[in-house]
Each structure stands twice: as structure tokens, then as C-alpha cells.
């Protein structure tokens, strides 16, 4: 049933312009990061790692969260239109599967976004004159960013489900991301879901900042399970208003 729900959600997303935003928006930090790298080559000596500090600086701190939020808001958008909530809730489908199918798609989107960022990062590196391909470690950081983003995905799905407006959850994601930047700089990143993604990506750092992988993993798992459970419970218990 879950697989059928995923297929159904994919159908809903067809002919949307969502892919355009995901393709275009990450191009800017990648190429602007390259520009910054070229301007500061006197200070930035660690080649691919230095380029990474420039490309990931703003992408992870301010924009990755809102992009995930954009996707999550979009996949709930259809339900908020007209009387689709009624239709959805009267379908012979367990509500867990409804929520989890959206969750699976959103998680896939975060991984796609990171892989696309990897491609853009590689292209930028070649354009600015770096040799070879980026170290594997940076790809792992990107994927770890997706793992760190799991809590945000679940949270944004819950927010987008509860808030009928398309815009408000995205605004909240930006607020959360900026707060996340402050908290991770203050050493409190493990306690705020939006910081975990920044930490996972090792944003604007050339050395690994996640020293405590167990703490990182526990924190991600806790937030992810907490918000997923909250989302499913909300669907089960709350009377819908169509």
C-alpha cells in the first residue's frame, strides 16, 4: 500500500514546476562560491576543501531548509485545495501510508538536491581550475547533510500539513535555518533540527566538525521519529477541516 501511495503522490507532482526551482536555485551558490574562491585565492589554499567552504557557506545555512520546505509545502498543497482533504481521508488507505509516502518523496528530494549540488560543485571546481574530481569525503558530507535534514523534512511535512498556507511553512523554515546557524555556532546544534543539516554538511568548514557521530545520529533519529510520529498522530486524531 505504501508503494501505491508513493506512486499516487508522484502522480500529483506531475506537470508541476517544482523541478525548475530545485535545478536553478542551487546553481547560484555553486557558481557564486566559485567566484568567491577565485577572489580569495590568496587565503584559500586547500583547493577542493576551500572551494567547499565557499559553496556551502550560504547554501546550507539559509537555503537548503527553505528548499526542503518548498517541496514539503507543495506535496500537501493539493490536499489543501478545494475539498481534497475529505477525499483523502475517506480513501481506504491507512493514514500512516499517506504520511510516509510524502515523507519518502521528500527524503528522496533532499538526496537529489545534494547530488545535484555535488555535480554543480564539481563543475564549479573544474571551471575555477581545480584538478581531478572532488574528494569522496565531500560527497559523504553532502549525503550526511541529507541525513541531518531528515528531521527538517518530517517537521516541515507536519507544518505544511497543519498550516493551510503555502507560504508560511517556507517562511518558518528560513527562520529556523537562521536560528540554526546561531545555535550551531553556539555549540547547541544537536538540539535544533535545522542545525543538524548544516553540521552534517560541514558547511563552510574544511575539517570535519561532527566529532560526535553517535550524538549526531541520536539527535537526527530523535527529531525524525518525534516529528513523524506527531504527523501520523495528527492525521489519526485530528478532525480535518476541508
Amino acid at each position, binding site marked *: 500500500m505504501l508503494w501505491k501511495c508513493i506512486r499516487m503522490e508522484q502522480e500529483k507532482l506531475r506537470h508541476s514546476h517544482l523541478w525548475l526551482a530545485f535545478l536553478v536555485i542551487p546553481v547560484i551558490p555553486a557558481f557564486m562560491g566559485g567566484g568567491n574562491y577565485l577572489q580569495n585565492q590568496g587565503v584559500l589554499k586547500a583547493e577542493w576543501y576551500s572551494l567547499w567552504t565557499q559553496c556551502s557557506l550560504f547554501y546550507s545555512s539559509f*537555503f537548503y531548509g527553505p528548499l526542503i520546505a518548498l517541496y514539503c509545502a507543495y506535496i500537501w498543497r493539493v490536499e489543501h485545495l478545494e475539498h481534497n482533504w475529505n477525499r483523502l481521508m475517506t480513501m481506504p488507505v491507512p493514514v500512516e501510508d499517506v504520511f510516509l509516502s510524502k515523507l519518502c518523496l521528500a527524503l528522496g528530494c533532499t538526496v537529489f538536491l545534494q547530488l545535484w549540488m555535488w555535480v554543480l560543485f564539481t563543475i564549479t571546481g573544474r571551471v575555477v581550475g581545480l584538478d581531478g574530481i572532488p574528494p569522496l569525503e565531500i560527497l559523504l558530507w553532502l549525503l550526511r547533510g541529507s541525513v541531518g535534514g531528515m528531521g527538517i523534512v518530517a517537521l516541515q511535512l507536519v507544518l505544511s500539513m497543519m498550516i493551510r*498556507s503555502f*507560504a508560511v511553512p517556507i517562511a518558518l523554515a528560513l527562520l529556523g535555518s537562521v536560528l540554526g546557524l546561531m545555535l550551531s555556532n553556539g555549540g547547541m546544534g544537536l538540539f535544533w533540527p535545522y542545525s543538524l543539516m548544516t553540521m552534517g554538511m560541514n558547511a563552510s568548514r574544511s575539517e570535519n566538525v561532527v566529532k560526535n557521530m553517535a550524538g549526531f545520529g541520536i539527535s537526527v533519529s530523535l527529531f525524525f521519529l518525534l516529528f513523524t510520529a506527531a504527523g501520523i498522530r495528527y492525521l489519526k486524531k485530528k478532525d480535518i477541516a476541508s
Partner: protein
Amino acid sequence: MVREWKVEWMKTRYRGIGWIVLAFFGLIVLWSFWALHDIPRSQAEDGFRMLFMQIPLMDTILMPTMIAMLASRLCDAEVKGSTLKLLCTLEKKGRLFDLKLLTGACYLTLFTAGQVGLILAESAFHSFVRPLEPVQLLYFVLQIYTVSLGILLLQVILSFHFENQILPLAAGILGSFVGLFSWYFSDGMLKKCVLWGYYSELCFIIMDWDPETRIVTYYDAPFDWLAFGILLAVLAAGYGAGRWLFLKKEV
């Protein structure tokens, strides 16, 4: 006109617009206090210059997305409910566009006034030594308010034009990105071609960071009246074009 104006405000009731704007303002308050809390005393003495540099930078990141949300929330009462057809039989179509813009501008006025209040509050809290130059406060208001108004105009046009609000919202996020990176553009026409880049283009403070001492020094720069003039012209042309598009829109 007054009746339509009242109706616009009634539409905003229970929509939480003010709370979201307030949340963004709260974040700027937190961020600016956080930025000032651990800087050397010598730098804090020149706090006004520092804030006149840092608050526009924060606005560059936050405002485009906030304004996209604001415009989307203001317009989706008609777009989502498909009530434009009905509404346009009751009031002049152009007036509806004007009032949406005016309502958004009221939120921006409060937001900008709040930021002026924040600067004054921080000066009292951190005891800045260098006195405030009132003309710089005026430049600050012109810088923040005019650029935000331009972005609001763009977002209202987009929100009315596209039934699917993903594009206006994506434009807001894109704007935040482009605006942020425009701080790194060298001076020239490129910066003047990007609406979101005017937060940095109209910045009247420049800074110099010494990598050895790690001290930042702020200097005054002349206010770019040419860029301001261009922005006003873009605003006027954008208003005319946006209103025309809205009048032509098939409801």
C-alpha cells in the same frame, strides 16, 4: 476607497500575517544582539556604523522570502478562493491592486520603523560612543524601505499572476540568494541590474577587515543617489506595468 481599504484589513484577520512578520523582526532582534554580544569594546563603540552595515545584510537574506510570504498571503484570499471575478464586479480592478500593495506597504512601514527602534534600543543597551548621525538614519530608512517596496511590488505581481504560488515563493528564495551574493559583486552596472542587490548597492557604510588583528573597521561611504534614482524609476515603471498586467488579466 475607505470602505475597500477596511475590507482589505478585514481579509487579513486571522491569517497570521502580523505574527509571521513579527517573528522575522524578532529574529533580526536576536541576530543583531547576538552579533554585538561578543565583539571587542573598540568595535562596539562604533556600533551605529556596524548596525547600518549588518541589518541591511540580514534584511537581504530575510526580507525577500518574508515579502514573498507577505504578498502570497495578501493575494491568496482572492487567488485561492477564486473570488477575483466576483470582487471585480464590486470594486474597481485597479484599486484592488493598489490596496493590496498599500496593505503590504503598511506592514513594511511597521517593519522598518521597528528596525529603527531596534538600532536606537541597541545603542542604549550597548552604550555606543560615536553619536548617531541623523542623516544616516534617513539613508537607512530609504535603503530598506524603498528596496523592500520594490520587492513587494514584484511579488504582488507574481502572486496575482500565478495561481500556483510555488513560483512567487521560489522567486523569493532566489531573490534572497541573489541579494546575498550581490554583496560580493564589485561595484558596477551588474549590481544595479538586480532588484535584490539594491540592499547592498544603497549601503552607505564600507568595512575593512584586518586578517592579522581580526578587527573590523567601518567607514562612511557616500549614499548612491544615482542607484536610488534608478530604483525609484524601476518602482514607478514596475507599478505601471504591474497594474496594467493586472487590469488585463482574465478573471
